[in-house]
């Protein structure tokens, strides 16, 4: 940007500055939470211990606890939080509705039920399972869209259709779990609550690669998303290929969401919470997708710290995010009823 200090460009630069500040602060917060998540536990480790593990010169006990348990767990939390956040915000912006996050409109449930089916019936895991979850998520997105598109497009109807589809899929998932073998129930049950307990390096690699792909794909699409928020007609008038952009955004969002879900299960409310929080922090008309990703990371990491260390007992991270997310959902519903909220 080679501009003079025009008064009128101040507006643009001020919102840009704010966005950069918010993103940097969130990134630092995420790193701090990541660090806390790694060093705290049954035994407390120091920064040098962590560095020793990374440089592979630590004693084997520490290497195991940090290298095989805590580091993959924290990195998975970071990556999945970001994926949930970006996917959720993409849907919310695309559908002009904070309630239209994928964990509310049934798409998370679609990926999740497909994953449960994959484990219980087909006995698959790893990449195959992720692919299966993606197919489940995409199929659900298409079904919800088909049931909603009827002489035009109504986000309110989509939310209602999505909630119904999600409930049905949840029922199917539970039914499959009840019918499953004892052993499968254990590994499949985390798909109901969302848990970081099983994180390993396979999932770190899968989710980190997805995060990288997602970021690269979302950057150009977020400009189109910004335009779509002006309404389909205005966006089309300004040269946005509305249908194509929308399809691309949905596919990328479902991909990010499904892979995160296949790694850690549906961590409740992260997709739903990240977007609105990011918008309130950035406070401009932009879609704030990357910011939502960072908020998602902070939410999952922070919740994991609370879930593991705040009380005597450890419980799944999804329980903490539910405790935070439930009240926020109520508050958002309250305000969106009072004011025709656009998000």
């Amino acid at each position: 940007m080679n501009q003079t200090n025009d008064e009128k460009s101040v507006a643009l630069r001020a919102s840009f500055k704010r966005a950069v500040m918010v993103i940097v602060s969130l990134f630092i917060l995420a790193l701090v939470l990541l660090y806390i998540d790694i060093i705290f536990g049954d035994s407390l480790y120091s920064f040098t211990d962590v560095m020793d593990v990374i440089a592979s010169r630590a004693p084997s006990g520490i290497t195991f606890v940090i290298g095989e348990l805590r580091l993959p767990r924290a990195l998975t939390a970071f990556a999945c939080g970001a994926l949930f956040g970006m996917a959720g915000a993409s849907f919310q912006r695309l559908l002009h509705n904070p309630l239209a996050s994928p964990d509310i409109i049934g798409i998370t449930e679609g990926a999740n039920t497909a994953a449960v089916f994959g484990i219980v019936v087909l006995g698959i895991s790893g990449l195959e399972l992720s692919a299966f979850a993606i197919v489940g998520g995409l199929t659900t997105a298409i079904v919800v869209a088909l049931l909603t598109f009827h002489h035009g497009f109504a986000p309110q109807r989509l939310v209602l259709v999505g909630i119904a589809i999600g409930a049905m899929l949840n029922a199917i998932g539970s039914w499959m779990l009840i019918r499953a073998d004892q052993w499968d129930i254990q590994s499949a049950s985390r798909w109901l609550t969302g848990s970081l307990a099983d994180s390993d390096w396979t999932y770190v690699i899968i989710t980190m690669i997805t995060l990288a792909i997602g970021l690269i794909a979302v950057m150009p699409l977020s400009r189109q998303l910004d335009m779509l928020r002006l309404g389909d007609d205005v966006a089309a008038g300004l040269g946005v290929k509305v249908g194509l952009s929308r399809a691309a955004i949905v596919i990328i969002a479902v991909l990010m969401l499904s892979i995160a879900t296949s790694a850690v299960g549906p961590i409740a409310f992260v997709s739903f919470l990240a977007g609105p929080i990011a918008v309130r922090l950035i406070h401009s008309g932009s879609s704030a997708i990357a910011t939502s990703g960072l908020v998602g990371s902070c939410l999952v990491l922070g919740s994991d710290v609370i879930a593991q260390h705040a009380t005597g007992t450890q419980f799944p991270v999804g329980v903490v995010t539910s405790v935070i997310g439930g009240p926020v959902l109520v508050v958002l519903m309250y305000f969106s009823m009072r004011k025709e909220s656009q998000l």
Partner: protein
Amino acid sequence: MKLPEIPTDPLNHGQQQSQSASLSAQKISVAYGTHLAVNGVDLDAHGGQIGAIIGANGCGKSTFLRALARLVKPQGGTVILNGHDIAKLPTKRVATQLGILPQSPIAPDGITVFDLVSRGRYPYHRFGSHWSRQDQDAVEHALEVTHMSDFADRSVDQLSGGQRQRAWIALTLAQDTDIVLLDEPTTYLDVAYQLEVLDLLADLNAIDGIIIIMVIHDINLAARYADWILAMKDGTCDTFGTPSEVITPDVIRRVFGMDVRIIQDPESKTPMIIADSRHALGPKREILEKEKL
């Protein structure tokens, strides 16, 4: 009809401003399901005129405007923009030649006027391209002519109806096109704001030579501001011509199903309708007075 001369663009930010733009439609038909909303409508707009499309609710006037702006795909007919079939042009290129402001658009929460207007530069950008001097100039010019410069930092939610509409018009102007289509630009505005918006459009038309085509409800305002009027009925063109050719008791009766007298607008010397109604105050007084006697 005499066309205004097109003065040179002072900032010279136009892409092809000097060539006179044109937009024409041949036998446009648009169907929604089995319902034919627009049925074989022609139009030929060129050379810096203001056009108005009028008609009763559901006559297909908005749909026709949307077809002109390739927001709906016609089942039949073609729209020719500056000599090219609009359906075959890349959508971003169309967006540098033709701008459309849909009816009552809604701004995202918290967006500032400057941010909103700067979105009008989208068609000139590719992924990774920087905000240029030209973009800045176009946005500032758009804010200036719409008298919105002082509100650049304000959030759009905080503006009055008229200011908000001016901000949206500024967005369309920042797009820097020779042709601007507007769907009901004065709807939901107070009377004073309606005139303010239309005067602004007339200024832009006179100064920059921009072709303006608008769907408008108010027949008298259409007559006052437009060079030509297209009166539509049941998806077809009923009458096309200058305001004095279109605004006649016969046409108004056919198109709106309403009996009117036509007088001359004392302000603009254009035709003006005076609607008959059973309960106009004059006859009512006469009846009351007769009953008293």
